[in-house]
């Protein structure tokens, strides 16, 4: 019981601290779709906002979301300069399919593999799709789980607010 109380206390502290935004973890090892190892600090956009989308080849709503965003991505980039980074959580079973999947779908995004779910864990992601809006300073300003048609409108709205 004592432990549960402690945990609740820890949670409350967490909320208090969230007053200052959490930032994107810097030194988590990811892999590019060409097999190269990189640190998560490569996820940046020269001081402009970034959207990180956690996805998997087998996840239908993830694919719907990334395909739907593709249709408006050019407009988004012109308007806000935002960059989308798609982080796949596919494990060994489907990791080899990430590159063909992203290219087969003609996605204009930067794609990374998080095969050991290190970044997923570090960012507290439970299920995919899970998207984060990161401001130019690398702070997480908004996050969202799941995808329903039209969800991309809410996403870009949070990016627009950063520019105000």
């Amino acid at each position, binding site marked *: 019981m004592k432990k549960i109380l402690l945990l609740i206390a820890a949670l409350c502290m967490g909320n208090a601290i969230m007053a200052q935004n959490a930032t994107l973890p810097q030194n988590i090892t990811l892999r590019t779709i060409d097999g190269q190892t990189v640190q998560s600090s490569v996820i940046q956009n020269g001081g402009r906002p970034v959207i990180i989308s956690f996805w998997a080849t087998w996840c239908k709503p993830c694919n719907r979301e990334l395909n739907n965003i593709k249709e408006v991505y050019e407009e988004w980039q012109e308007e806000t300069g935002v960059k989308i980074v798609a982080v796949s959580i596919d494990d060994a079973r489907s990791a080899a399919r990430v590159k*063909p999947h992203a*290219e*087969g*779908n003609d996605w204009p995004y930067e794609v990374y593999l998080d095969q050991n779910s290190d970044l997923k864990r570090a960012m507290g992601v*439970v299920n995919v799709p899970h998207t984060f809006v990161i401001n130019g300073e690398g702070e997480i300003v908004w996050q*969202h789980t799941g995808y329903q048609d039209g969800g991309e409108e809410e996403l870009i709205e949070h990016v627009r607010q950063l520019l105000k």
Partner: protein
Amino acid sequence: MHFKFENKILYHSVIDNLMKRKKVLALTLFAAMAAAAQGQGLLGGHVTGNVQLDGQMSSADSTIGAQDVPEKLLLNARADILYTNGDFSAGLRFEMYQNPLLGFDARYKGQGLANYFVAYNGERLSVTAGNFYEQFGSGMILRAYEDRYLGLDNSLFGLNVQYRPVDGVTLKALAGKQRIFWEYGDGLVRGVDAEVNLGSLVKAIGESKFRATLGAGFVSKYEDDEAVPAAANPEMRLNLPLNVGAASFRADLGYGNWSLQAEYVRKGQDPSAMNGYIYRPGEALLLGLTYSQRGFSASLQAKRIDNMGFKSVRSQSGEMLYINYLPAITKNHTYAFLSMYPYATQVNGEQGVQADVMYKIKKGTLLGGKYGTDVHLNSSVVMGLDTTVTGGAGTEGYDVAGGLGQTLYGDVSVEVAKKLSKNVKATVTYAYQVFNPVVENEPGSLHHNNIAVADVSWKVNKKHSLRFEAEWMGSDSHYDANDPEHNDRRAGDWVMGLVEWNIGTHWFISASDQYAYNDGTGNYPSVAVGYTRGATRLQVGYGKQREGLLCIGGVCRTVPASNGLTFSLTTSF
């Protein structure tokens, strides 16, 4: 407290000491977090994490084989809390199973701190002490991972070090014991791994079209001796290897649009409950060839596994305490009927191939229409090894010839997705599947299934959208409650319908029904409503759930039938 420590193995002093100090460590962690919280201005740092709560109520229903739940309400809960301050982080996880949801192992019953660690993640060096997850290559010699929906967690408790001396070189070393429910297995796991990306090291390669990453790993398991009788003479006990080693060699090569991945692993003599205590060495090979360009990709994969089950405790059967992970080579289907007979990796032996083609027919062409058309083809075949048994426990076990064993699984599927108008999208899928019940250790002959799925989504207006899914499965199997070879409730011909109504981006309501209309049994209606706001999601469902296998990544868990209310709350912060 739900931690039990087995202190008899004194020579694993480092790890054991760590484990004995679990309480102390956990409290230190809390203290660190508290200090950080109080001194926000001074120390900075932030807390992130997530909370999940799943509940289930179920009452008896003889038509689907659902049992009454005496506790009325089953609850699984967990909270991950991560404190990060610069390169330093500390995390802990609380888990509760009071009592475990249907399908979760009863040994999870209880609550407490299930996982905690402190970590330093620098630019060149990463060190984690406590519970950690790690993977060497594709995981065929080592993968400590968890899947909360499968109730599977084989995290290592110990020390994990990663060092990147120069860009393109990654060295890893680890030692620890594996989690099993609320305890740790007796086996000690040690491993080292090295990976080199030639493009980062050699400038000329980095600037060329050629890409190459090479890697090698070694894992060793130590476990105390125990008495296991030999098959030839039960009076004699086996001379068990206390240390079992496994090595892996891998390459990830690319040239232009082509890439080739290969990994070969070999394991020394490892008699265990899984392989019937035979002394045959294990080996596995995974090959993948891919061509991809914008709008088109094709890939071919091949896999062969021979006696490659690798656990840290030799007497363990079931899904816990695996040191390695052997991925299934079949496609991970997501539609209900396509995944009704999922394939699970046969760690003792299998060989298979998978081919996959994706093509985007350009818009403005005859077949592409106004918006373009996506075509996706996939096929996989998995066969057993061609083995001849030569003996039981204490022998080499079997010989393998170059031919094919029995058919375990096969499928071919074609999926066409097309945007029909500005607001309507449709996907149709057809699949043919062959399934051998031996994959699930069940008797019976091959099932042949034809499956068709239509999935249509319609954006009614800016606020509302609807999704309809219709599925059909025709199977040559039939259900007979009194015949052990035919009492699988998945048998027979099925239809399914689903309607999902999305209101704005926050709410959804769905209703579905699965019905065995011929040669089968059961009718499974269910409704669900969900609410999402930011990173918080609440879903409540009511209805009947078919007994079956929940599979993720070729690892499966049996889920019994249920009839009643379920709810799930997740939030990330």
